[in-house]
């Protein structure tokens, strides 16, 4: 029995009490939280960046991460509906419950695109609050960072000025980056693209690119041959520049469309870690904008 308790004490990290432990759902939120929180927070990211953000496995190890967190920051807008609720129900941690002081839903800071006026599963796996992939508009990153800064300040008021300064520094840096990206993307204005799922629409919106169709016939419904034949016609009549494709769906249909019509297929990372080379927010947008630079 003695050894049992000793092991238990050893397993409990002693650091726990020094910094704020923040759990976040996706890597991009982790990056923002690290920039703003810096040395005053420990960040643990639940989902992997190279996997479909809709389908994260609710592994028990994620429950123990939530158990030891002081706060939880999620993307929201139903993106995590398939995996975070069962984790919260088992984490037995009242600090991170929705509605509590330690819970932040980032979607509440964003004006969302594509809010459906009516919702039915006959229309596929629709997000009732609108398109939740809002972090791919670089303007939104600033809004989110602002929100994270005030969230951290309410959790740890003694470091308010640190968080505020970190945010101001980040804002300056990010505005410079955005100018660079706007320049790169100027030539892409009014281009047309095809996506697999509508997960790059905020990026397209930011740079005035039109997403004219998706490879999946309806959200969350895998490609069908009838829909693919329609896409071939769409490509032939509307001449989109390319298919922008996420890293986690099979490119089988995209390759087929390429073979039939010659359309270019461009792989687009959606988050940090989606491709091994992408380790920061700046690298993510450098890569995304670089894909249109030709």
């Amino acid at each position, binding site marked *: 029995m003695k050894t049992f308790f000793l092991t238990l004490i050893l397993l409990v990290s002693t650091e726990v009490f020094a910094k704020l432990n923040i759990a976040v759902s996706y890597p991009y939120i982790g990056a923002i939280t690290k920039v703003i929180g810096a040395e005053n927070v420990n960040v643990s990211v639940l989902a992997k960046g190279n996997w479909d953000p809709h389908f994260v496995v*609710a592994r028990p190890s994620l429950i123990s991460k939530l158990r030891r967190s002081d706060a939880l920051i999620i993307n929201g807008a139903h993106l995590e509906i398939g995996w975070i609720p069962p984790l919260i129900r088992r984490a037995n941690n009242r600090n991170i*419950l929705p509605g509590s002081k330690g819970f932040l839903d980032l979607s509440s800071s964003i004006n969302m695109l594509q809010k459906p006026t009516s919702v039915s599963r006959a229309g596929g796996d629709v997000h009732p609050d609108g398109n939740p992939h809002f972090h791919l508009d670089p303007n939104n990153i600033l809004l989110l960072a602002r929100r994270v800064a005030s969230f951290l300040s309410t959790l740890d008021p003694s470091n308010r000025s640190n968080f505020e300064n970190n945010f101001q520094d980040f804002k300056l840096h990010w505005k410079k980056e955005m100018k660079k990206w706007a320049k790169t993307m100027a030539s892409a204005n009014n281009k047309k693209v095809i996506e697999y799922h509508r997960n790059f629409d905020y990026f397209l919106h930011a740079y005035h690119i039109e997403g004219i169709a998706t490879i999946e016939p309806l959200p969350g419904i895998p490609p069908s041959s009838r829909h693919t034949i329609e896409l071939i016609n769409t490509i032939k009549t509307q001449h989109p520049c390319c298919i922008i494709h996420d890293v986690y769906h099979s490119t089988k249909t995209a390759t087929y469309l390429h073979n039939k019509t010659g359309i270019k297929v461009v792989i687009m990372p959606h988050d940090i870690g989606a491709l091994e080379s992408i380790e920061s927010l700046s690298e993510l947008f450098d890569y995304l904008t670089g894909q249109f630079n030709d």
Partner: protein
Amino acid sequence: MKKTLLILVPLTAIIYAQDEIQTNSFADAFSQSAFIPDISLIVDMSYVNRNLKDEEVAHLEVPGVAHGLIGGHSHGEHSHSTVNASNGFNLNYAELALHSSVDPYFDLDAVFHFSEHGVEIEEAYFTTNAIPYGFRIRGGKFLSEFGYLNNQHHHVWDFADMPLAYQAFLGGHGINEIGAQVQWLAPTSLYWMFGAEALQGENEQMFGTGAIAPAGDPEAITVSSPDQPNLFVGYTKLSGDIGDTTLLGGLSIAYGDSRIDHLEDAEAPHAFAGTSTLYGADLVIKHYFDSYSYLKWQSEWLYRDLDGMQYNYPSDDTTSFNTVALRKKQSGYYSQLLYAYDQNWRIGGRLDSIYQNDVIANSTNKEMPDDLNRYTAMIDYSTSEFARFRLQYNHNTALYNEEGEQQDVNSLIFQVNMAIGAHGAHNF
């Protein structure tokens, strides 16, 4: 005049009705529709083709363990119908599930199991969410977290039916009892959970809360009912990841008094009273190839020890009992492998076995068969997360007829499972 009046009446009605509509927005001020809980309905149906007729299957038993495993069966006023019971079409159930927060401190869940034979409250429980130090308390009727599969609902299972050892030892509902549960999650980097449950113990296959008395003289209580609650369950579960592989293991124990009453059975009426313990060990290993494709190996081992007295009627007399000191030590396991090719297709195989079947009556081992196996293969296709079509084949060698002859039972099951509404995501 009359005519004018007749026209006037509906006219005034319309005028007032329009007035009503204009002021109707007041009603919204008290609308509570935003508080409607998450509601979902899950319907499960199947088409079954067996090599034996329904009435033949209904009389088969796992010798020394359980009878009437497949098909509807009845003892006394209780009649049970398991899933996929009949040849041809089966409407297995329509399950209505509700979930919502009660207030900042509690969640409430309920699952109503509708079948053609009636409605059962399968679950109705509250769960705390605001207790500190990693504790959580649940109370009401719920599925025990003994083992891995017991806590999962039928629609989550990777096969259309329950593993043989579970069904034979615990019956088609597993440990589904009224009681209280406390769980504690250790603040460790590995997932490490401890749980304890005090349950009423009404499970008819292994426990039970009734008194035992001969049917011919019901006043003469031979064995009184046990202290209630009668069933105590404890378990611990440990989980961690190695790269893209998750391991989850658990050890469980369930202990209680047995009052198994089959005195109203038409064939060989009997009863059993004693103490019973069920031990369980489970291991799940799941490896992910990408977001949609995985390989999952899931195994559970069960061992039960029943120690007590069996009561039988002496020939035609139902006013007194003959007694036999009876001990049953029985072990079984299932092991299943599942491969998800993508979001649509999955394929799986399962091996079921009860390999230890020591039934010792008055110190003599009754030499019951102990090679009770079942082999299962399945393939399923999901059009979305909410609809699944499954084809399953079972070859069952665990069933015996009343003459003690082993009977092969082969079943082909085509199962359709669909869900609508707001249904919460599932645990690992």
